[in-house]
């Protein structure tokens, strides 16, 4: 179904400060059209292992709370749990983060934003699904606007079960993720690039008003 674009995304004429009129096509001019490619690690295995070790000890979480589970992430910053001890930090922009935590149920509207945030992150990047809602819909299994399987829409490295998982469970989950990264098994970004068409078709099936480029850089 072809949706009409929002006014700010339509092709329009703009008059620059120097008086020259030119045409702007936001979807082409403001976004890069290049699709993701599979990124290879360093050629020497030991260097890649060293980088993986560094990545595992420096998890920068994107501070994007998608559902009620976000409330369980906040205590991790407090004196009681203090995730900073384990090299876990929160970054406010997707550019600098390398871990996206989908904290709980994901409505279709939020999914759209989550996909964009995920695509703006730099490879290698990891996704952790939090709570049963991301696994099979949880208590929102019959809801009209929440997705039920997160791994249909983006590559998930690790699920943390519970409704909601306590902060301790989150810390344990992050430790498991570190092991995956050190073993070189957390290659979600490459998986996303390889099966890009499959992910996109899944995403477009639930997001009816798709008004963004296929890949937001």
């Amino acid at each position, binding site marked *: 179904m072809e949706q009409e674009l929002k006014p700010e995304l339509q092709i329009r004429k703009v008059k620059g400060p120097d008086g020259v009129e030119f045409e702007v096509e936001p979807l082409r001019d403001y976004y890069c059209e290049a699709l993701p490619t599979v990124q290879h*690690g360093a050629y020497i295995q030991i260097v890649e292992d*060293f980088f993986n070790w560094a990545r595992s000890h*420096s998890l920068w979480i994107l501070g994007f709370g998608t559902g009620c589970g976000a409330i369980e992430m906040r205590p991790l910053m407090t004196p009681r749990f*203090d995730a*900073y001890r384990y090299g876990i930090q929160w970054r406010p922009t997707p550019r600098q983060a390398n871990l996206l935590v989908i904290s709980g149920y994901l409505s279709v509207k939020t999914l759209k934003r989550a996909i964009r945030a995920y695509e703006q992150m730099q490879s290698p990047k990891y996704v952790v699904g939090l709570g049963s809602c991301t696994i099979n819909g949880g208590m929102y299994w019959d809801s009209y606007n929440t997705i039920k399987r997160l791994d249909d829409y983006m590559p998930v490295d690790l699920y943390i079960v519970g409704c909601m998982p306590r902060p301790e469970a989150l810390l344990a989950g992050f430790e498991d993720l570190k092991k995956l990264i050190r073993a070189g098994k957390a290659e979600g970004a490459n998986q996303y690039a390889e099966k890009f068409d499959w992910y996109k078709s899944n995403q477009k099936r639930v997001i009816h008003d798709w008004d963004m480029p296929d890949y937001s850089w």
Partner: protein
Amino acid sequence: MSFDWMKIPYALLTVFIVFNYGMLLGALIQKIGARAGRRHGIPIWQNYVDLIKNYGQRTSITHGVMFYLGPVFRLTGGIGLLLFVPTIYGSYMFSNLSFAGDLILALYFVFFGTLGMALGAGESGHPHAAIGITRGLSQVSVAELPFALAVFAVALQYQTLSVTDIVAAQQGGVMNWTLFTNPLAVAAAMLAFLGSMMRPPFDVVIAPQEIPIGPPTEYHSAYLALMQTNRAIFPIAKMVIYMNLFFGGATSWPEFAVKVFLLYLFSAFVGVCFPRFRVEQSIRWFLIWAVPLGVLAILWV
């Protein structure tokens, strides 16, 4: 005048030592801040790991030439500042490339990185970056004012623009330090110091909870790593200037380490005690409290 080529490797050695000291000290100060909040805080080597990770990221995106040059300018500002003032007074190895008029150059370099950053972040086209730059430049400019006044007061006091000469004049006992010979200038400069250290209460520019992280919003991967490198070097370089101008300089590395640590601790101490100012509040604060002190310092000399 013949140039002493041996100075270059020695200067690089200084940069290396200062970089590592800055990395560790930054983590230590963060740990101290965390302890004030009853947390353990990051491990002491965390900054190194973050740096390696950011250099090891596989992809990066550019927004244009200035986007590349922003972090480079910033690092140039930090290293340049460090290279053109004597780090250790009286040492041939670590007096770096200091020369007769280096005080003016140092003042320039303090601002240089910020301007480069402004151009680079502006090119990224992100609205948060633009807001961050506006806030950052206005705050840094106004914090620079009392510092410049204090520097002029000191230059007038010692009748020289050479940092080496200023340090030399302060030797021979604690009572010769500018801290005691011209306390007003030191007070003004220390208030300016708070403003330029990007710690609370003056960190609204890069605070993650504000418009997300300000100017470096779009910076990532190796760009960010370059800026992290600078964040290790630049504060130390700035503190070297303060140490030289106001606190008698350092004649050995241990003395350097202690003085820099205490200066850093001062800003961290203020930082954990006071909440964050908004930009217009901090500008007003600098104009009301710090600038008159600087003017008085000049009048007093």
